[in-house]
């Protein structure tokens, strides 16, 4: 029994040792070229700006005897621009490759423009405040040194939760993103564990599927920007 346990622990210990083992070359790379590489572990935190997402149109239809439809009114739907916060935790796997986990909270209103009322009601723009929580895993590949910082290509996928109605209406979906990230260190404090502080800016195309929607259930995209402070360890 005891022997069996010891045997079982070995793979776990080996797996835990894998991260520092993989991180070490990245750290060495950072030491060789100050602007070109990065430390093996990075934490970034900052603000998010998300562009609006169209949800398309929908019509409140009645069915005519001939099989056609009569519209009571029409709606044009979207998720409005959003603001939020994002935190990322990245690990250098190789000198060029980073793995990253991120979590974000984004606040954005669901919006519907109602028009073409059959009985002449005034057009109206209706909103509902919404909150979105996103957890994503991503890979970053260092492309080049640009403007004194590192430019990465970034691609990720994850899970999201939309909430509306003061959090009572909940719907989950999946997310993805592709884009670029730029990181520049501006402060370095050498020590037994090198600590750096820098700036990180991301530009992404965010992709969302399912979740809370106002129109057809389709995959939607929106521009997504992140800017924040990054700490390297």
């Amino acid at each position: 029994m005891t022997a069996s346990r010891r045997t079982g622990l070995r793979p776990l210990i080996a797996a835990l040792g894998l991260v520092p083992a993989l991180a070490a070359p990245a750290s060495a790379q950072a030491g060789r070229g100050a602007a070109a590489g990065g430390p093996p572990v990075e934490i970034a935190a900052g603000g998010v700006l998300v562009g609006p997402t169209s949800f398309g149109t929908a019509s409140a239809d009645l069915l005519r005897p001939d099989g056609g439809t009569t519209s009571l009114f029409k709606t044009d739907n979207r998720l409005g621009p959003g603001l939020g916060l994002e935190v990322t935790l990245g690990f250098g796997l190789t000198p060029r490759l980073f793995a990253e986990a991120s979590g974000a909270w984004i606040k954005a209103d669901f919006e519907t423009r109602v028009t073409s009322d059959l009985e002449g009601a005034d057009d109206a723009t209706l909103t509902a405040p919404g909150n979105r929580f996103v957890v994503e895993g991503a890979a970053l590949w260092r492309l080049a040194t640009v403007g004194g910082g590192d430019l990465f290509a970034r691609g990720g996928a994850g899970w999201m939760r939309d909430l509306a109605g003061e959090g009572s209406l909940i719907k989950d979906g999946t997310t993805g993103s592709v884009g670029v990230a730029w990181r520049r260190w501006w402060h370095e404090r050498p020590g037994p564990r090198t600590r750096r502080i820098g700036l990180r800016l991301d530009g992404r195309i965010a992709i969302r599927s399912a979740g809370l929607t106002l129109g057809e259930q389709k995959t939607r995209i929106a521009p997504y920007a992140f800017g924040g402070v990054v700490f390297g360890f």
Partner: protein
Amino acid sequence: MTRGLRLVMAAALVAVAAPVAHAYLKLGTEVGSRVVGVRWDRFPVRYFLTNRAVDGVSQEQLRTAVQAAFDEWASVRTANVTAQFVGFTDAEPFDDDGASVIGFQSRPEMDRTLGATTFTIDTTTGAILDSDIFFNASFAWSVAASGQASRFDLESIATHEIGHLFGLGHSALGETELIDTDRRRVTAKRAVMFPIAYPAGNIEDRSLKPDDRAGLTDIYGSAADRSYGSLSGRVTLDGAGLFGAHVTAFNTSTGELVSGFSLNDAGTFVITGLAPGLYVVRAEPLDDADIDSFFDEDTTVNIDFRPAYAPQLVAVPAGGAAGSFEIKVRAK
């Protein structure tokens, strides 16, 4: 137990008649000083069919069509209703026999009525004890799979009347046009329980619509079912509650329309059986409807206001209720 109070009421489906608007409505009866919804307490509902055929519909075809209509209601997964065919009978619909009897009767004097439903109700609880349905044999009927021109589809009309049998009133989810000074025909609708039938030959009403399902769910749904939710609010005119406004909830994601009425002087309304989601909610007057298709004949309803929308999108949660809101309408 007090029995009786046989209601020959707004549960008649007409070929050509009155109203416009949109909504499901539950049938109610006064118990003491309050109005309670009528409903069956025991299932399956056991029913007999008259042993009478009419031109175009044999006895067996009547049984098949009525069974299909019951099955359509029983398929609503958010409500629990079942029915059981007991057998053919010599009894007539509307006989005071304690049995639920469904079948044809020739009523040429009811020249706009395709069918009607009556109830015997326990007036102390609102429980339905039995319910009869008649189909007017003065019209031409069909059970053809794809419908038959110039004949009314029996299964469609049976589906409507069985909605009444389960306790649903008329929905106003439809539009009509005048064809002479006091007669209307349906131009479009989205509820089997709309009081005016599609023209002869049409079979669309064999299939329930979201409004019908929501109405049945309101009566027979389970509070523990988290697959649907509800919304509620007030309709006001110059700050005062408005009775009889017709309120429609539209799910922009699914395209479903479900609605109800403001049913008291405070102007409050409740719509349940809604799929979770964001809703556009709209209030409108019953401005070209026969009010007695929905309410008692002596009811006064203000129809002198313009349609208007709720001021925000309404978030209906799963298994819960949206926060209350107010729809302010203006006089015409």
